[in-house]
């Protein structure tokens, strides 16, 4: 029997081309777009990065964490501590963010990996709270009230000079451009990296684990090792995103950097309404989230209630999210990962 295995679908080059065009347009945006548009997109890109990593963690790994704000916070403080204590350029400080998140991930794994399901969720939240309280004791970076990124650190941000010269923007706007490009690069690398992973053997294993952990284990899948890897990768990703978010913000405090609402609750909402366990879901989710936020921001606490209600409705009536409604009807995938078998010649 002659056969062929193909990953993806016919016509996927159209999607690839469209993706390339979109990325190029986004990359060129600083030359023609407004500063507020760039700031909005910065928010969308960083939230989408966090959502992709939470989806990797919970959607595929089955690890429903409510403690991702710990890694965002560690990443944020990584950039600030590097700049304030050691005079490291904030852009290079993102490497410190990654290391800080990595260390916290390895240490916290010792505790939270002893717990399962709801206990794991609570455990991650408790550990994140402990981290927030600990960082609030760190006087050198502002203790409980927080601190600002030193003026010279902001001024010397890599690439800002070059942007100033090329675009003729003022310094503050030039720094926004650098942050924007970094956020774009981060979200493209995140989605591209996860897509690459999902097309590999480990990605197929993740999809099997998502669908049926018990059958996956009896098919020889080492769930423990994969879960630890996913936990660490998601932590590092959230750490870098956190470093970037607060570098752009210019100010950090324990309450904002370790906010469970901002860095976990909203992120879960994005993944759940978009469609958990897919790459496309968080993309749809972040667009919906951004639109809702722009429309309902004036409603104050009503806004949170609307989000919650919408989340519950989607969970009840479309458990695979908005993307699930689309792909369920059409079988279409923006990021095709299905391995299809074609029999080219049968023998009897």
């Amino acid at each position, binding site marked *: 029997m002659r056969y062929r295995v193909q990953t993806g679908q016919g016509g996927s080059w159209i999607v690839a081309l469209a993706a390339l065009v979109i990325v190029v347009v986004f990359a060129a945006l600083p030359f023609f777009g407004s500063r507020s548009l760039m700031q909005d997109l910065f928010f969308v890109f960083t939230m989408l990065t966090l959502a992709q990593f939470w989806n990797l963690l919970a959607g595929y790994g089955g690890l429903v964490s409510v403690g991702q704000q710990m890694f965002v916070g560690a990443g944020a403080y990584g950039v600030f501590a590097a700049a304030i204590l050691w005079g490291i350029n904030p852009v290079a400080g993102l490497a410190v963010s990654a290391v800080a998140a990595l260390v916290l991930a390895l240490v916290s794994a010792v505790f939270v990996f002893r717990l399962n399901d709801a206990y794991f969720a609570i455990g991650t939240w408790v550990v994140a709270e402990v981290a927030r309280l600990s960082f609030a004791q760190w006087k050198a970076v502002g203790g409980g009230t927080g601190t600002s990124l030193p003026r010279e650190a902001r001024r010397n941000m890599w690439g800002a000079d070059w942007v100033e010269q090329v675009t003729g923007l003022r310094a503050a706007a030039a720094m926004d451009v650098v942050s924007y490009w970094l956020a774009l690069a981060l979200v493209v690398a995140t989605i591209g990296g996860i897509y690459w992973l999902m097309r590999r053997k480990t990605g197929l294993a993740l999809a099997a684990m998502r669908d049926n952990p018990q059958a996956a284990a009896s098919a*020889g899948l080492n769930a423990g090792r994969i879960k630890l890897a996913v936990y660490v990768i998601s932590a590092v990703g959230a750490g870098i995103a956190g470093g970037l978010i607060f570098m752009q913000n210019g100010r950090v405090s324990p309450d904002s950097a370790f906010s469970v609402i901002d860095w976990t609750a909203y992120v879960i909402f994005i993944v759940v309404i978009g469609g958990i366990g897919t790459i496309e879901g968080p993309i749809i989710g972040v667009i919906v989230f951004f639109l809702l936020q722009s429309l309902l921001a004036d409603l104050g606490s009503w806004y949170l209630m609307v989000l919650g209600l919408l989340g519950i409705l989607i969970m009840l009536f479309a458990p695979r999210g908005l993307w699930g409604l689309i792909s369920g009807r059409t079988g279409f995938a923006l990021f095709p990962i299905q391995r299809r078998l074609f029999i080219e010649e049968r023998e009897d």
Partner: protein
Amino acid sequence: MADAGTLLSLEGVTKRFGSLVVADAVTLDLPRGQALGIIGPNGAGKSTLLNLIAGNLMPDQGLIRLNGRDITGTSLTQRCRMGMGRAFQIPQTFSRLTVFETLLVAASQGRGISESEAAGDCVSILERTGLLDRANQVSGSLNLLQRKRLELARALATGPDLLLLDEIAGGLTEAECASLVGTIRSLHAGGTTIVWIEHVLHALNSVVERLIVLDFGRVIQDGAPDAVMASREVQEIYLGIEA
């Protein structure tokens, strides 16, 4: 201690759910290459015994050995990689993966090989289990019969030396049943050791050379299928069921 020809041995394996004893000091030696059938009334503890062997459940007491090595404390994953393949009584599907992908993941993870190395075997298993035409169908959309076939196919894809089957023949037509029996016979002839729980007795007895009867978690009969079927206990249980 079992002799060198023994693949699997259970020694006093006991499991309780609360006050209910579902495996009662089960002691059993399974020679390499043997096909063993397990029968018994509903709730006798047959699936539980398979869960203990495969590592889904840990026994309260007793030892499980594979190739003479104590594997009592090892995980599901480790046992799969030691060569156990398991088909569940209630099909366990990867609902968003296709039939072909299900086999790919089982073959590549269970045997530690790449997807492309695994693909050829997956195709031949699809053919043998009658699933080739469904290869690209999402598992969640299969009917019960197709899911049962996929159970067997996934177990085979892990490349087992010891195949653990739990009621895979129920609901098949005569022709389908005959082809299932043919498949299992040829695996058996190829040297695979088999433990098969089955209510479809004519299918089971046309393959296995040894039959045990479980009742209330105890092995109450053990021997050649003809002799076991003729025993008073089996007559009572099965006449009792059919009456």
